[in-house]
């Protein structure tokens, strides 16, 4: 139930912390962010009760929020990331 999610969240935090000290090159950031996303999903789906929510429009609101944030981050990074100026 909730306690299972809680333990999983604590475990993920521990893994993130420990993984930061392992040399993974470019994947350090990716691993940390993937684990963070898993934790955020767990909190959102189960603690915030998105899973099994009664209101159908709710999922649309949440997904579009994430979508617009994604546009902000992806397009900004793509802009700066494709400038080949040294």
């Amino acid at each position, binding site marked *: 139930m909730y*306690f299972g999610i809680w333990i999983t*969240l604590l475990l993920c935090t521990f893994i993130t912390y420990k993984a930061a000290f392992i040399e993974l090159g470019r994947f350090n950031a990716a691993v940390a962010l993937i684990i*963070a996303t898993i934790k955020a999903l767990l*909190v959102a789906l189960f603690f915030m009760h998105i899973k099994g929510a009664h209101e159908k429009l709710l999922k649309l609101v949440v997904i579009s*929020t994430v979508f617009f*944030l994604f546009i*902000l981050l992806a397009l900004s990074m793509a802009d700066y990331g494709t400038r080949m100026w040294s």
Partner: protein
Amino acid sequence: MSDSTVVGLHHEEQHHPELLHHFAEPQQQRDAASLGMWIFLGTEVMFFGGLFCAYLIYRRWYFGDFGAASKSIDATLGATNTAVLICSSLTVVLAVWAAQTARRTLLIGSLVITMLLGLVFLGIKGKEYKDKFEEHHVPGASFSFDHVPIPGHADQYANPRHAEIFFSLYFIMTGLHALHMIIGLGLFAWLLFMAWKGRFTPEYHTPVEIGGLYWHFVDIVWIYLFPLLYLIDRHP
């Protein structure tokens, strides 16, 4: 429909006293409250999103300098704070469940523990800020970040101006987050007061639910802040 046609008069026993008249039934009212809070959280995501965007751009530009600056903040305290917030999210969810199942003691206890954990979080943050202040890592006239090697390149020193940008972002993002925590503590103090007065029942505990949504959001922001700010380049 058994509508009361006389304005100003209605029969109390026809609907729950907390049901507002522009809603057809309690479930619709609950859904509307939840949806409203989620839309507000959407605006908050954009609020923090802009800061995250700025952070990502600067991190990409000045990766080495950011790594050096990130190494100087205490990752153990950060991880502890993450665990504290995760525990507080658990107590929030327990508080909602307690309200749903009419467990008054558990409800009040959970709200109290949530607030205590929030205060612990702010206390640890205060300690971190104090350390930064003493090390002259607070951006401004007294900022200094000389001769700090870039992780992985022991022969190169970090650019103090770029490190100052990291600390500006660090203080603004964690400061804004801490402000949200303080607001959350205020909200929960009000929820605690209402719970103490017995205002919440299994039929009506909407403030606990949407207050909980706010608290979980603050937790999620920290879940992303922690790896991005504290764990940039920790491997020796």
